[in-house]
């Protein structure tokens, strides 16, 4: 079995991880919560606060779409979502906290260590990762088979 070739989805997931790490998920000035949290608070109605015209413009970026895709994935399969979060190092702190792994560090952890953090075997980890990638690719409309 050879290594998987890096494709579009990998580049988008990398962008998403950087976007999340930079804390860019807030939409309005003064709002500290995520797009999803504000959407849930407003019961499905998009509410954009802020004082200037530029803050009133919604930002529908591919990163926010990935964020939503992972949210829906977590509803169907929390393990798949956590596997993806650890794999791309996006939101890993919350995952490590949830699994009571205070010593987890993404830079020094390979797939084996990530699987052990989640309490699953490496084979299970790889299978869930493939499922998670497939789910997100489908949501984004990327056909992974052509990559």
């Amino acid at each position, binding site marked *: *079995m050879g290594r998987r070739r890096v494709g579009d989805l990998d580049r988008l997931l990398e962008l998403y991880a950087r976007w999340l790490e930079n804390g860019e998920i807030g939409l309005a000035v003064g709002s500290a919560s995520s797009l999803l949290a504000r959407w849930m608070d407003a019961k499905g109605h998009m509410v954009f606060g802020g004082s200037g015209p530029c803050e009133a413009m919604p930002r529908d970026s591919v990163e926010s779409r990935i964020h939503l895709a992972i949210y829906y994935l977590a509803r169907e399969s929390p393990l798949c979502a956590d596997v993806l979060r650890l794999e791309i190092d996006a939101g890993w702190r919350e995952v490590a906290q949830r699994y009571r792994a205070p010593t987890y560090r993404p830079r*020094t952890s*390979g*797939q*084996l*260590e990530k*699987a*052990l953090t989640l*309490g*699953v*075997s*490496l*084979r299970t*980890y790889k299978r869930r990762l493939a499922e998670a990638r497939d789910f997100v690719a489908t949501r984004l409309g990327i056909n992974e088979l052509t990559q």
Partner: protein
Amino acid sequence: MLIIGLAGGRPDAREEIIERLMRSANIPFKRYEDRHRREPGPRCNALALHLGKTGPHAKRGVVVAQVLTEAEAELIRARGGVMWHVMGWPSESVAFQRDKGDQWVTHFQGGCRHFLDPLEALSEALLAKRKG
């Protein structure tokens, strides 16, 4: 301390597995091999002595490069270790015992059918050890 014993397979396959363990896993592994003794009793005694020197709470692992006798395999299992049966020609003296945690392992990256990749097998062994 995690003890892994390799039985069966070709020498180059076992070497590849050992190399992947020592290179990839976060746990530092030390290799043990007894090339001089052939009789079960002396081999088992030498292995027991070596494992006794290491201590059960050591943070590193020991990989026994070639387990030739059932007595050695039983010693490894009794110390909380696992036996890996390498893909290829099966061992004539060490029987596969699934209920005791034995695994089929291959040196091929990603595994092959029911044979696990060395790191996959290592994760199974570590999880089993964690569950006690």
